[in-house]
């Protein structure tokens, strides 16, 4: 009787994934007309676009992962103070939409930018330079988080052993540190490449003449409503994501070094600490420049000519209806986070704690596969699959597409923490006559409150900044705040864009803060 709830919820997860992940992708594949394939592929623009996308993504990935590695090393392998604060600062750029980074760069380094006017140096932002800088800003935090994780869970006893065996520091770096970092670096490399390859926000603003595939797809679908051509580009954008997914699967650690016996001990080294501090401060300045610019722009009369203080831009922005769109954003963000956390947590409960059988393995695989769908491709697939149905054009479809888009990461968070529980708990519960659902509510959920909050915050923040999956699905009534940015950009309304970016950042910082204090509160209550 009680197990029926468990089974029907499992069925619900299965149906949800089939309907929201598999069906739309099939719809995308079947919607492409073969005539268009040859037309798109043989067109004069195609080869340069593909090359532009590839080149800008590759350069960005190398730059971004290198900086992330440097920052992760500085924070985790030196004795600088306030490490927690630095970690938070370095992930701040994740809290604003990618397109805002593009706008920030324009304001600073564009032909009429603040920095350009001040120094007379024009860095010729539009093109490869702009894309690389902008994309690095939003992709670097992602790589930073991935690599920080590895640095934090390195086992120090291996280094002690190496000391005993008489290995030099250089040999240790090669034999231990780099070999520990190899797999995560590959993962980070592919993750960053995929994200940059499929983003249209930054190149739309600072790409200049350098047309990339996602921008082309965006214009083709939004401007010309050509779904077939958009679909072809969508399938091409999927390729690196699929490769990344396969490599990630092959690249998985089998948990051999999951238990650390001793955390890394950081020795004394003044030079290293000073170097780390300088790197951190420089990064802080670079990260805060666009944010400060947004603030200035929101509150001055006529940038960059008249810097006197005014509320005019704010009132103008509010006249444009920003308040209502903020409510849309908050509603979408909170509902998606709530429903998404529930669904992904339950999916993880099914796969992590009910033994290995076909259905749970299928759910696990589809959940992971959703990681490789770029938002823009997922969005188009949803247009093709749900067009004409009653959900199309409603706020509900925006919420579902976001749940699907952000499914994999919270799912993995929950899967990892649920897998850590004692393997005999189910057996004990079963013999005591405690149902699975009761165990879920009374034991697993209270024990993983921190993870649940983390999942909620991940989904919420991403909903606030995303402009990809929802871009083809939203209309002027239900669109979230971030989607106003590309629209205002085409109307050259710069001040409202700056103001929107600030609001989104503020909302996300508040959300993160609330989550942080809740986690602290629960952690204190635990002991």
């Amino acid at each position, binding site marked *: 009787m009680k197990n029926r709830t468990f089974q029907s919820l499992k069925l619900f997860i299965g149906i949800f994934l089939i309907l929201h992940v598999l069906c739309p992708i099939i719809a995308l594949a079947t919607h492409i007309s073969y005539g268009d394939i040859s037309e798109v592929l043989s067109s004069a623009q195609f080869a340069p676009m593909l090359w532009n996308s590839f080149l800008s993504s590759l350069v960005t990935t190398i730059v971004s992962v290198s900086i992330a590695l440097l920052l992760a090393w500085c924070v985790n392998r030196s004795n600088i103070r306030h490490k927690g604060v630095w970690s938070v600062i370095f992930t701040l750029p994740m809290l604003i939409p990618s397109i805002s980074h593009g706008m920030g760069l324009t304001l600073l380094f564009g032909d009429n930018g603040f920095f350009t006017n001040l120094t007379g140096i024009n860095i010729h932002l539009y093109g490869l330079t702009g894309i690389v800088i902008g994309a690095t800003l939003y992709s670097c935090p992602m790589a930073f988080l991935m690599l920080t994780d590895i640095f934090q869970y390195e086992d120090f006893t291996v280094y002690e052993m190496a000391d005993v065996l008489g290995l030099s520091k250089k040999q240790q770096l090669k034999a231990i540190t780099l070999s520990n970092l190899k797999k995560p670096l590959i993962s980070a490399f592919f993750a960053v490449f995929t994200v940059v390859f499929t983003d249209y926000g930054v190149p739309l603003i600072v790409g200049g003449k350098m047309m990339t595939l996602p921008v082309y797809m965006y214009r083709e679908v939004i401007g010309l409503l050509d779904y077939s051509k958009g679909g072809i580009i969508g399938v091409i954008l999927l390729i690196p994501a699929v490769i990344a997914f396969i490599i990630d699967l092959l690249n998985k650690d089998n948990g051999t070094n999951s238990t650390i016996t001793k955390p890394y001990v950081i020795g004394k080294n003044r030079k290293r600490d000073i170097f780390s501090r300088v790197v951190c401060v420089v990064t802080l300045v670079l990260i805060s420049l666009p944010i400060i610019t947004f603030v200035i722009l929101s509150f001055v009369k006529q940038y960059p000519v008249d810097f006197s203080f005014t509320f005019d831009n704010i009132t103008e922005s509010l006249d444009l209806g920003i308040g209502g769109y903020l409510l849309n954003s908050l509603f979408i963000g909170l509902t998606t986070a709530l429903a998404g956390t529930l669904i992904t947590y339950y999916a993880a409960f099914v796969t992590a704690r009910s033994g290995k059988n076909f259905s749970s393995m299928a759910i696990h695989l589809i959940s992971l596969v959703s990681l490789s769908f770029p938002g823009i491709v997922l969005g188009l697939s949803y247009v093709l699959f749900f067009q004409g149905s009653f959900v199309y054009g409603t706020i509900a479809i925006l919420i579902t597409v976001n749940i699907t888009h952000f499914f994999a990461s919270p799912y993995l968070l929950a899967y990892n923490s649920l897998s850590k529980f*004692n393997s005999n708990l189910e057996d*004990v519960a*079963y013999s*005591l006559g405690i149902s699975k659902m009761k165990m879920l509510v009374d*034991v697993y959920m209270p024990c993983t409150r921190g993870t649940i909050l983390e999942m909620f915050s991940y989904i919420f923040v991403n909903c606030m900044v995303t402009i990809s999956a929802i871009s083809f699905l939203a209309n002027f009534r239900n669109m979230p705040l971030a989607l106003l940015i590309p629209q205002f950009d085409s109307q050259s309304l710069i001040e409202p864009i700056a103001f929107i970016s600030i609001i989104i950042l503020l909302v996300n910082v508040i959300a993160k803060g609330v989550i942080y204090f809740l986690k602290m509160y629960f952690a204190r209550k635990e002991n």
Partner: protein
Amino acid sequence: MTEKLIVKNLVKEYDGEQVLKSLSFVVKEGEFLSVLGPSGCGKTTLLRILIGLESQTAGEILLDGKDISKLPASQRGMGIIFQNYALFPNMTVLENVEYALKIKPETKADSRKRAERTLDMIGMSDQLNKKPHHLSGGQQQRVAIARTLALNPSIVLLDEPISALDVENKEIMKRELKDIQKKFHSTMIYITHDQEEAFFLSDRIMVMSNGTIEQLDSPLEIYNSPANEYIRTFVVNHLNQKFDSLSKCIGRL
């Protein structure tokens, strides 16, 4: 003593391979029966089938004369104790014991009292409000035992319950297990690979290898008249070696 549990021709197959080869035996009321054998002999599979976590391929299980072969674990009224304790990490000692009592309608009313009484009998009454991660391994195992015994199980199954403890605590827990069994008058089936544990604790020992029963007898009987060559090497010689090395040690003193 009456017959508590009767197992008839129990067979378990995995992918066509027999891991339990037609086992038949009887456990008496109030008895402490050890199932002794090396890893892979099928003893844990037997335990999982007895409690209902896995189903047998063929054979019958009778508890108090009733056929329970097809009943789900929650309706068999047996309790289980694992090597890794499997306590609910978010609940205090008292809550851990009380939790299952609260769910069952027949124990719901006096669940608190019953939990406290059981914990008192097991010597944990001064730790009621501690969380499991603040307890030692031995203490955690005591809570797990209290959690099981509070429900008044018809039979308690123990799967190598003390092998995760250090040597000193192992000795203490061994003695306590015997006391606990007497106090609660429970029938216990004890899975182990350790000859000394089995000889110290058991009324009777069932020695297993390769899914069959090699001998089922009292410790003394097994030691004095081993049924076959396997018992002689795995049990008798092993114990003799222990005695030898011990007496050599004492001799050197």
